[in-house]
Every structure is written in C-alpha cells, then in structure tokens.
C-alpha cells in the first residue's frame, strides 16, 4: 500500500482533531482534549500559524481507502538561546492498523529534511516515560533523553495561575 506525505490544508482539520484524540486515547488522556476544529483552523491556518502539520495519506488501489488520512506530525519552531532555532515535534501519530509500513520513518525523514532546510540545530520533543516502544523508536535514530542526561523537568503554569499572577482586571 502506498502513501504520500503532504502539508496539511484547512480541509484537514477534522482529520487532525480525530488523530489528536486517538493519540490522547493511547496516552490515556482523551478527556484532556478540549481543543476544537475551529481553534485548530484559526491557530494553524490564519495569518500567524502557531503550528504546522504534515499529513500521511493513503494511495491505495482500493478506492475506499484512497485519500484516507492515517498519520500526521504537528511541529513548530522553537529557540534555544545556546544554539538557535530548533524544530519542535509536538505530535507524531500513525493509526494502529497502518503501522510497520514505514510511514513513521517517512514522516521523521521528512521532518529531518525540513529541519536541515530551515537551518535548525536539532529536533526536540517529549515522550512519556512509560512509552517504551516510542522511546526505543527514537533512541534507534539517535535521540537522547535530556531529562535523564541533564536533569531537565517540564513545568507548567495553568491559566488560573497566570491570571492570579497578572494584574487583576479593572472593575
């Protein structure tokens, strides 16, 4: 079965949301997805895109499968003040039944090309510590666990905390 990789377009937002929810379900955090198609559309395809996606689409002889979106990556550019631009891989997912066909490797290769073309010094991403298959997939390709090696921990201020820290709204 052949597939092609292409830049996501506005018409892909419902597939993107579907795959985001499938990946969240795999991570056992499906109820945490509150993002809507409308937000994905505004945030990814407006004047200032906050993210970019590459879609993996089937090109089967079987016409019912043709054009089916079966995987994606979501990425954006970040900045490391020691080395400069980085490509940040936010989401990376291929539907279960389409794994083992090289789609994941193809997506990662495409991102590697992109990172090189845009003069990024590396690619960063987070992986859940209990996600052994993914950790192996990345380590096989040279990824280093910076949490382990350098002790970095990811922290978050929720919106509530931000509001508390900001200036109270005028009455």
């Amino acid at each position: 079965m052949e597939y092609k990789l292409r830049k996501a377009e506005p018409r892909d937002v419902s597939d993107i949301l579907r795959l985001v929810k499938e990946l969240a379900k795999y991570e056992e955090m499906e109820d945490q997805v509150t993002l809507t198609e409308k937000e994905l559309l505004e945030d990814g395809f407006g004047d200032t895109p906050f993210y970019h996606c590459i879609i993996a689409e089937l090109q089967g002889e079987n016409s019912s499968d043709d054009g089916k979106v079966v995987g994606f990556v979501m990425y954006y550019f970040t900045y490391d003040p020691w080395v400069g631009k980085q490509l940040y891989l936010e989401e990376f997912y291929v539907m279960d039944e389409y794994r083992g066909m090289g789609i994941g490797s193809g997506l990662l290769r495409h991102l590697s090309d992109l990172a090189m073309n845009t003069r990024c010094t590396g690619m960063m991403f987070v992986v859940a510590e209990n996600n052994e298959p993914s950790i192996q997939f990345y380590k096989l390709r040279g990824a280093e666990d910076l949490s382990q090696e350098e002790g970095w921990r990811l922290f978050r201020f929720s919106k509530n905390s931000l509001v508390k820290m900001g200036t109270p709204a005028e009455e």
Partner: protein
Amino acid sequence: MASFILRKAEARDVSDIMRLIKELAKFEEMEEKVVLTEKDLLEDGFGDHPFYHCLVAEVPKLQSSEGYTVIGFAMYYFTYDPWIGKLLYLEDFYVMQEFRGLGIGTKILKVLSEKAVKTRCSGMHFLVAENNTKSIEFYKRRGAADLSSEEGWRLFEIEKDDLLKMTANKSLCTVE
C-alpha cells in the same frame, strides 16, 4: 533600592542579551555550550520572522557596579498544545545576582502572565533543571506544576548529526 523598568527588547539589546544568556549558562555550569552569536540573535529575533521575543529589565546607569543598564531578561515564544491550544513558552529567565530580591523576577513573570492571558494562551510552559531547587521553589510558590513528576514527561533531543543521517536514506514514498 533599585528602580527599574521592563520593556520589549530592541535590536540594540542583542549584545546585552548575549551577555545574560552566557551568565545564565555559567550558572547552570554549561557555558561552553553557548555557540549562538550576536548576529544569529539579531537575525532570528529582529528579522521578518522573529523566532523568539525578549523582555529586558533596565536600571539607571549609575546603579550597576559594572555599568550595565540591562540587568535581567526573559526570552519566550509561542508553542502549541494539541489538547488545549496556544501556550507561552518561557525559554530563558535571568536576573543578575546583584539585582535579585528586588521584585524584578516577580514583575517579569507578571508581565509574561498578562501577555499570555492577553494572547489567549492556555498556559505557560518552561523547563527547570531538577537540581535548581531555588528556581523550583520560586515557580511552585506561584502555582507551577511539575509535569515531569506528575505526568512522566521526558525531554528528548535528536541532534543535527543524527537528523542528517535520517535525511540520507532514499525515500519510498511520494513527498510533496
């Protein structure tokens, strides 16, 4: 008592930003890892497409023992969480030692929080080294949650050499 102002960084601030980046890296015992140049900072932050934004803290000239006026900064940019949307990502946050304890750090965080809320971000993310207890306390006092602890997230990196290795393979798929 120092009086200070916070303002958006301008192109002329790149050498001060570079200096403070190196000071923070020194504090983290990783100074040799800073390979970025002022030229990079200028192109990447003040060109057509900024890859980062900076807030700088400035004091009147006579107040600093070494004559610096820019004595603190925060570097940030916007990221995206596919579950909740836009986030403000705090990349670097540093106030020179002699100017700590004066509320500058707190004020910087306040301005960033307001920026995040105003730009409809769902939160602010950042990394802290696990042995940096002072910073961890600073953030936790203000409500920060340690996602590495709570949710098990670990930060990974694939460096340029390994990215290049992946680009070398022949592709079997059509790429647009």
